[in-house]
């Protein structure tokens, strides 16, 4: 497949890995921000090809993992008690809420539908004028334009039975939160390529300067990842801290201005709670007051008491890269993909789920 197979070239990956081995002289800890990158590192078996000096730490860029418990409870409440058609991206529905996941709500009779695009949800609203349709709009800057566009479409088509339950989070404030944590030992970042494809790269320059860390905007295929790691290691070894763009075939410095306009039209930046981490100031999007009619939070006056997180789950420390998943006492014991205590064990992009599979492999391979 053109534009993909070139970036899965085994020889090229081997060359970059060799170059990393040549370059590295001491241990470095690098965080890949995006869950998609974590998934690819694990799926392609890249982690065990890196020299031991290069430690990859999995970042908070898993939208499923950081969506607050309370919001999942709200979504379940809307589907179960208010009888709405609740539409969601796929891997959100397996994440445990305080009582149950949306998958369980569905089994109990709630109308929960898995969609690939929020525009489909608008169509469902048009086809079911007597029902309320809510789209569970989670994600980073990458999914924000499509979610915003669904509101614009609904408004244009005069669809009044459609709204979104928005839980949008932003990457740069998350990097700040990681760096501000006194326990953090991250020395460089692979920034999330697809987020930058939308937002551009300008907002990362201040982070590079303030924290004196290399940030390399990186893609998702094996060649992208090993090249991004090499670029970061080179900077670290030279004591440099710059913003570099490995993913230039997709990411333009200015991003996608049209998508940014759509986001700005519907959303405004606000404080946002991150599951496992807490509130990060100005770290997410909420629906602008002009569009409250499409904000499910306001439309349904949902007020669900905040349930306490499992105190056995250390998701926050894992998401900030302070603890590795296997350092959690519950890892693989009280918490497995079948019976997750926290979201990072659920999503295929979650660090715990990724490590659960990977560490099993390691244990067996080294046995």
């Amino acid at each position, binding site marked *: 497949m053109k534009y993909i197979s070139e970036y899965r070239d*085994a020889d090229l990956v081997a060359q970059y890995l060799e170059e990393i081995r040549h370059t590295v002289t001491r241990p470095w800890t690098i965080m890949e921000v995006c869950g998609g990158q974590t998934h690819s590192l694990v799926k392609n078996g890249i982690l065990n090809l890196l020299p031991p000096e290069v430690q990859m730490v999995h970042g908070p860029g898993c939208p499923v993992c950081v969506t607050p418990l309370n919001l999942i409870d709200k979504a379940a409440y809307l589907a179960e008690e208010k009888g709405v058609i609740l539409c969601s*991206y796929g891997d959100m529905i397996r994440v445990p809420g305080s009582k149950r996941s949306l998958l369980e709500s569905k089994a109990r009779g709630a109308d929960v539908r898995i969609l690939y695009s929020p525009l489909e949800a608008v169509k469902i609203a048009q086809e079911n004028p007597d029902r309320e349709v809510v789209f569970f709009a989670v994600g980073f800057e990458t999914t924000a334009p499509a979610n915003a566009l669904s509101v614009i479409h609904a408004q244009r088509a005069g669809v009044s039975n459609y709204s979104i339950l928005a839980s949008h989070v932003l990457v740069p404030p998350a990097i700040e939160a990681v760096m501000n944590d006194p326990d953090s030992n991250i020395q460089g970042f692979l920034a999330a390529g697809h987020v930058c494809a939308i937002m551009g790269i300008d907002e990362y320059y201040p982070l590079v300067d303030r924290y004196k860390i290399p940030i390399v905007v990186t893609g998702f295929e094996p060649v992208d990842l090993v090249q991004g790691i090499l670029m970061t290691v080179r900077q670290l070894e030279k004591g440099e801290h710059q913003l570099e763009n490995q993913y230039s075939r997709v990411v333009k410095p200015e991003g996608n201005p049209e998508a940014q306009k759509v986001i700005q039209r519907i959303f405004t930046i606000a404080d946002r709670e991150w599951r496992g981490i807490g509130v990060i100031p100005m770290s997410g999007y909420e629906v602008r007051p002009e569009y409250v009619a499409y904000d499910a939070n306001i439309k349904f006056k949902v007020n669900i008491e905040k349930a306490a997180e499992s105190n056995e789950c250390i998701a926050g420390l894992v998401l900030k890269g302070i603890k590795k998943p296997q350092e959690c006492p519950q890892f693989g014991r009280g918490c497995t993909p079948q019976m997750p205590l926290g979201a990072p064990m659920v*999503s295929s992009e979650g660090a715990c789920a990724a490590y659960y599979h990977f560490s099993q492999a390691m244990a067996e*391979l080294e046995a």
Partner: protein
Amino acid sequence: MELQCPLPQFDFEVITLGHGSGGLLTNQLLESGVFDLLKNEFLDQRHDGATFSLSGPLAFSTDSYVVSPIFFPGGNIGELAVNGTVNDLAMCGAIPRYLSLAFILEEGLLMKDFWRILVSIKFAAEQAGVKIVTGDTKVVERGKGDQIFINTSGIGELHPKAKINKSRVGVGDRIIISGNIAAHGIAILSLREGLQFESAIQSDTTNLNHTVASLLEVFGDKIHLLHDPTRGGVATVLNEMARDTRLGVEIWQKNLPLAEDVQGACELLGLDPLYVANEGIFIAVVAAEVSEAVLEQLQADENGLQAAMIGEIVDVHPKQVVLHSSIGGKRVVNMPLGEQLPRIC
């Protein structure tokens, strides 16, 4: 496969509850359609069951078919119901002989749709060389079914040279797959999700019994195990194999046959083709010394043109399936948790 048989004149356009009552309407439905179409000496008896003789060790299998949508690119629920059970028998090393055929119809099913399904059943059975010898038709109220559910059970005689058993799988055995993976699941999903791809991806549903029989004829007990990776895909079958044999399974990603359009769809939908369902391929675990010859024979068969050697049985990492990625990495391929859910980004 879409084959035509003229729709006979019925006095009704849709299936009603009465068609499952056992009374006049049931009779009318069966006499004017089903029996004529599937006609053979067993059905002609019009008895409660079929009586027949078979010889030697037998294989017996059953499966229910609930696929939605009932018509999909490359097939429909009818031929799936025949091929599925025929293939299950073939995987036991049997020559499929007789099938039972039971319908649960939902009130309101269009008669022309039912007819199309029946015609496919007839041709699929002919192609596989099996006879449908007994059956049943029930009708449930609207909303209590999903147009049509089918159950088929099948019985077959073991091939005299077959010695298919998990206990015969040993270290060094090679794993061969008979064709491209993930086509059926993606064909169904693309229809269900209303996704349009440049070319319609076709389900691979077909009967594999003739292909398997010729392998058994030539290689006999060197074929240690056969499996068709239907629900849960290749990953599930390999995991079951590793678990039950307590041996390790290694597979090589670069050898996995995958059509480009299916791969593209999987990339787009965020699905791992290893977990996607198949209906027209099988996995064979064979003795290493015959593996090249098995592959060669398969590649000359119309059902094995894309056949490939994808891995081997090893004595390390028992009960685990380890994939050697195309770029030289390794990872464990786990049993899927449930249905694969698309990722957000």
